[in-house]
């Protein structure tokens, strides 16, 4: 007898990648989560892809939704179960919320007879909570550990059971479920108090898999249904940074400080308060690179395209001719972006072979929408850019010198801080290169000036 367990890839985008293959046949998996966190979607996707891609019949026993509701909701997020149900690849059983301990016998009858009938290789019980509520914890342990676990092995099927977790509760199950299953996956809606809460999946346990990390973001919706967002750190990281190749900052004085410009494939943060010149600097950088034949994507999260083109004209550039040379300007409204759309957009963008520089102006607005998820987005963006050898330049309001925002600096290879200085009753704009990985740079304040219609960098008089 082989002592190797049969693999059971879930087919859920991203999940099999981050877990190194998904589940194993015969495992009992517990999926716990807050209301609305996506337990049904996760389980449904497991069944859907099993039937559709792997030809494995699936059985869903639901104590919550009617068949009609299930079909409707799932179709709404990109999973059309109709053809699979018609082909008898998927069977959906409604199990009315039980009011007595006889419920266990009813569950048993439905699960065993239907699973055998369709030769189910994947089974979902969504949710087990009403049944567990009728039994004391020790009996729950017995039901899970022995009954469902034995069944999963006897039927050679992988079973997912879902369990409700009230908001605010850190406990996964009634008491002991997490200790007696092969896998425990927790789904949470994080940051309900911010404009765009995001979803986090925590893989607390998965027997047979060594997980590099346990927390991942996920999204629910078309076209995937359920998708675990790719986390860069799980990929084989081969950075395409080219130290010998430089991307101009658009300001000769700044290029000089940075020993020839920004190293190709690195991530640069331009920080500074409003009015300090971030957008001007970024536009000049974009224009100068386009003029040198680089393909540049300029994304603003704050200003519409037309306004940016006007600013380019103010700097003395011909927006139309820059467009022809390879500068593409785009405005994205952060309020309309979901985490999923951001990652999809990044994938598409970084997938463009010719692109060499991506500039994103106003990244701080993402923080307002995504709270602490903001840093994760930045890190993934930066990491993925490095993998593709694309230079990334971002502008933010927060100063990395500010204690509350110092964590942002971990994302960047280069940090250029803009600011203000008062001298002789006049305020001048300052520029300081705070950090430049793979370089030893001169970190003294310079003056950011507008000279002959273009931005430039000068030394302060007291320094000369």
């Amino acid at each position, binding site marked *: 007898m082989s002592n190797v367990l049969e693999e059971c890839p879930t087919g859920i985008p991203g999940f099999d990648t981050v877990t190194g293959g998904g589940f194993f046949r015969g495992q009992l998996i517990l999926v716990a989560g807050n209301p609305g966190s996506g337990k049904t979607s996760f389980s449904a996707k497991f069944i859907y892809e099993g039937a559709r891609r792997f030809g494995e019949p699936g059985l869903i026993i639901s104590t919550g939704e009617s068949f009609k509701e299930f079909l409707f909701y799932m179709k709404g997020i990109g999973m059309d179960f109709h053809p699979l149900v018609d082909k008898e690849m998927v069977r959906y059983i409604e199990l009315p919320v039980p009011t007595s301990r006889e419920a*266990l*016998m*009813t*569950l*048993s*009858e439905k*699960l*065993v*007879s239907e699973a*055998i009938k369709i030769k189910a290789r994947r089974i979902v019980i969504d949710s087990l909570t009403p049944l567990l509520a009728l039994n*004391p914890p*020790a*009996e729950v*342990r*017995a*039901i899970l*550990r*022995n*009954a*469902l676990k*034995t*069944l999963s092995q*006897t*039927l050679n099927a992988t079973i997912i059971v879902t369990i409700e977790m009230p908001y605010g509760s850190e406990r996964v199950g009634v008491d002991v479920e997490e200790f007696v299953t092969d896998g425990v996956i927790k789904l949470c809606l994080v940051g309900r108090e911010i404009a765009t809460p995001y979803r986090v999946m925590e893989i607390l346990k998965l027997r047979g898999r060594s997980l590099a990390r346990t927390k991942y973001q996920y999204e629910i919706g078309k076209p995937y249904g359920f998708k675990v967002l790719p986390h860069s750190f799980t990929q084989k990281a081969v950075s395409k940074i080219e130290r010998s190749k430089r991307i101009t900052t658009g300001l000769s004085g700044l290029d000089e400080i940075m020993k020839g410009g920004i190293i190709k494939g690195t991530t640069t943060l331009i920080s500074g308060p409003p009015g300090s010149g971030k957008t001007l600097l970024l536009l000049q950088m974009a224009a100068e690179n386009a003029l040198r034949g680089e393909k540049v994507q300029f994304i603003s999260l704050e200003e519409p395209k037309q306004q940016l083109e006007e600013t380019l004209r103010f700097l003395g550039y011909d927006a139309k001719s820059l467009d022809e040379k390879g500068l593409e300007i785009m405005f994205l409204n952060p309020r309309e972006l979901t985490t999923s759309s951001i990652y999809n957009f990044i994938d598409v963008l970084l997938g463009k072979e010719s692109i060499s520089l991506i500039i994103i102006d106003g990244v701080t607005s993402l923080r307002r929408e995504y709270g602490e998820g903001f840093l994760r987005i930045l890190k993934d963006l930066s990491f993925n850019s490095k993998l593709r050898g694309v230079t990334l330049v971002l502008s933010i309001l927060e100063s990395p010198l500010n204690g509350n925002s110092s964590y942002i600096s971990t994302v960047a290879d280069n940090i250029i801080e803009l600011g203000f200085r008062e001298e002789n009753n006049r305020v001048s704009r300052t520029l300081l290169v705070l950090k430049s990985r793979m370089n030893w740079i001169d970190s003294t304040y310079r003056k950011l000036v507008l000279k002959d219609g273009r931005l430039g960098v000068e030394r302060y008089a007291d320094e000369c």
Partner: protein
Amino acid sequence: MQMNARKIRDKLSSLGFEVDVNAVVRGIAGFNYKFDLIVENPSTRKKAIVIFLDKLDSRHVIPLLALRYDLDTQHVILAKQVEADTELILNEAGFKVIKISCGQEDENLAKRIACLLR
């Protein structure tokens, strides 16, 4: 079924086994379970829990499997009607399922239980 239980008890007793009818057993989890029969071989201390059912079918699978976890003892199920798939699952999980055929003598059933405890 109670007639069966009593006759089987008598037969097993006559064969030297210790037998309790309607016996209450405390499981690992601390719950008390009541069974039709509990048979013990006094020399080997091997025990069997005997459950009588009219019909054994898929409804019984999960409760029986759960029960087995709480009571690590040989379980014997005697039933007049046995669903084939259910029997297969329970056999694989270590249950002994005995179908009571029409006209089958209780003495024979008792002997089959006795065999399990030798």
